């Protein structure tokens, strides 16, 4: 069995759990279930919980595969979960994405309790968006519920979900970026300090965050004598209900931000827009990517021109309001092959966690089969001063094919960017752009966008 360790790879995100771990072999993702988890695994099925959760699309389905694939002697079973087309992290989610992930975690816990099990983790990283819906991906998160035992994941739930959602709703939506620093969720004393005073008038936030934070400080390091028999099932249900009610009451309504109403203030005509959309759709049909990344997607208009059951599109934008609108529309239309995410391309998600390997960087989750970079190059080359050659190199690294729009200096949007700065961008011309990108790409198509000064290209990495 040990010889299997050649040509395989244990994934660094799941080292913490003694119940099992993820590994990949030949591009396929597997999860080893260890013998220590045998009883719980059997109970997950015998109780009917697995079937109930999978039917409600709350838990990722899996199939059991040949045990010879096991990575170590401690294996009880090897399972192959349904593939998630793109792994995303809570600091890349909009408000409603994090809220849905929280509500899903609580509904799973409530269903588990009914069938004699309980979640031992409430990590936001265990939730992924699968076919448009927040879904638990860690099959080994359950343990047998013993009446009297408190919820071991209570603190983690408050840190991963409640505290960031409360801050986003009541203080500033950008505070979800704290999750990038605090990998195990927001410290509750910090959340308590940052939240406005009025949050104390909300019973759920008063107790689960403010009083909770004070209790952590007050009882820090004290030994707890009895851990069993202290909390009735009724009390547990009351706790879950209250967390859910508190979360459901939190709301964030995007206001017109820098980009929120971008398409209303854009400088090109309807005919230019339609021309551009037609070209993008036609080229996608030619490339047939299984995964496409739309960078600077705004509310996802072009992502939708590309997304088909065969093409999964990750729709990135820097503006939380645009991502929120995109997600709500996706949910409303029940689109399964689209994932809106928050991303600042000038400072993309880094790899974080233990040994900097727990959560992958933006770039290492690629390359995508196709990258869309529409109306974004001027922000990178002019606002952020990135030389064109470096842009070409980066795009070649993250995508195999590239659909890119060149926005020249004569364009009114670029004129606005240049109004407040010295024009040091001498090679920012169609010729300069093409010569830089030819270093890394073959240009297959070049089409001037109708009724505009812009040019759109289809390129393929060399």
């Amino acid at each position, binding site marked *: 069995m040990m010889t299997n360790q050649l040509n395989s790879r244990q994934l660094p995100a799941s080292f913490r759990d003694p119940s099992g771990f993820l590994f990949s072999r030949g591009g396929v993702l597997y999860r080893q279930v260890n013998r220590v988890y045998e009883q719980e695994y059997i109970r997950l099925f015998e109780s009917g919980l697995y079937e109930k959760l999978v*039917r*409600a699309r*709350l838990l990722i389905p899996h199939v059991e595969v040949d045990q010879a694939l096991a990575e170590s002697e401690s294996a009880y079973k090897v399972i192959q979960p349904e593939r998630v087309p793109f792994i995303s992290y809570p600091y890349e989610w909009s408000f409603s994405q994090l809220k*849905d992930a929280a*509500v*899903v975690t609580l*509904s799973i816990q*409530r*269903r588990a309790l*009914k069938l004699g099990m309980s979640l031992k983790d409430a990590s936001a990283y265990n939730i992924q968006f699968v076919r448009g819906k927040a879904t638990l991906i860690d099959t080994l998160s359950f343990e047998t519920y013993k009446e009297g035992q*408190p*919820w071991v994941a*209570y*603190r983690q739930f*408050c840190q991963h979900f409640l505290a960031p959602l409360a801050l986003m709703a009541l203080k500033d939506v950008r505070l979800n970026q704290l999750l990038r620093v605090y990998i195990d969720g927001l410290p*509750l004393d910090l959340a308590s300090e940052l939240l406005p005073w009025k949050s104390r008038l909300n019973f759920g936030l008063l*107790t*689960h965050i403010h*009083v*909770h934070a*004070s*209790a*952590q*400080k*007050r*009882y*820090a*390091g*004290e*030994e*707890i004598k009895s*851990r069993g028999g*202290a*909390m*009735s099932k*009724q*009390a*547990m*249900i*009351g*706790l879950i*209900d*209250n967390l859910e009610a508190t979360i459901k009451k939190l709301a964030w309504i995007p206001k017109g931000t820098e980009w929120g109403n971008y398409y209303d203030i854009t400088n090109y005509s309807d005919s230019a827009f339609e021309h551009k959309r037609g070209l993008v759709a036609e080229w996608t049909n030619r490339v047939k990517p299984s995964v496409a990344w739309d960078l600077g997607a705004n509310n996802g208009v072009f992502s939708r021109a590309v997304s088909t059951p065969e093409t999964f599109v990750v729709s990135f934008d820097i503006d939380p309001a645009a991502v929120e609108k995109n997600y709500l529309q996706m949910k409303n239309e029940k689109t399964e092959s689209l994932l809106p995410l928050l991303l600042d391309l000038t400072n993309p998600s880094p790899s974080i966690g233990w040994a900097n390997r727990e959560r992958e960087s933006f770039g290492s989750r690629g390359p995508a089969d196709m990258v869309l970079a529409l109306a974004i190059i001027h922000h990178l080359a002019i606002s952020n001063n990135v030389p064109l050659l470096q842009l070409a190199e980066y795009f070649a690294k993250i995508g195999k094919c590239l659909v890119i729009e060149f926005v020249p200096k004569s364009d009114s949007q670029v004129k606005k960017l240049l109004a407040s700065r010295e024009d040091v961008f001498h090679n920012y011309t169609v010729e300069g752009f093409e010569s830089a990108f030819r270093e890394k790409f073959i240009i297959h198509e070049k089409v001037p966008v109708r009724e505009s000064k812009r040019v759109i290209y289809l390129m393929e990495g060399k």
Partner: protein
Amino acid sequence: MHFAPLPYLDPGSGSFLIQLLIAALLGLGVAVRASWGKIKGWFGIKAKADEDDDESTE
């Protein structure tokens, strides 16, 4: 060099105790709601269907 004692203080104990306290309180609410449902039942008012039996979550 000064070593802050903070990293050795586990916030887990406080979380544990406060959970017991909050849950005990909220558990009472669940009991009250359940009895209220029963009382309403005597007068022929049906309780809301259990949401967990739905297929969807949102």
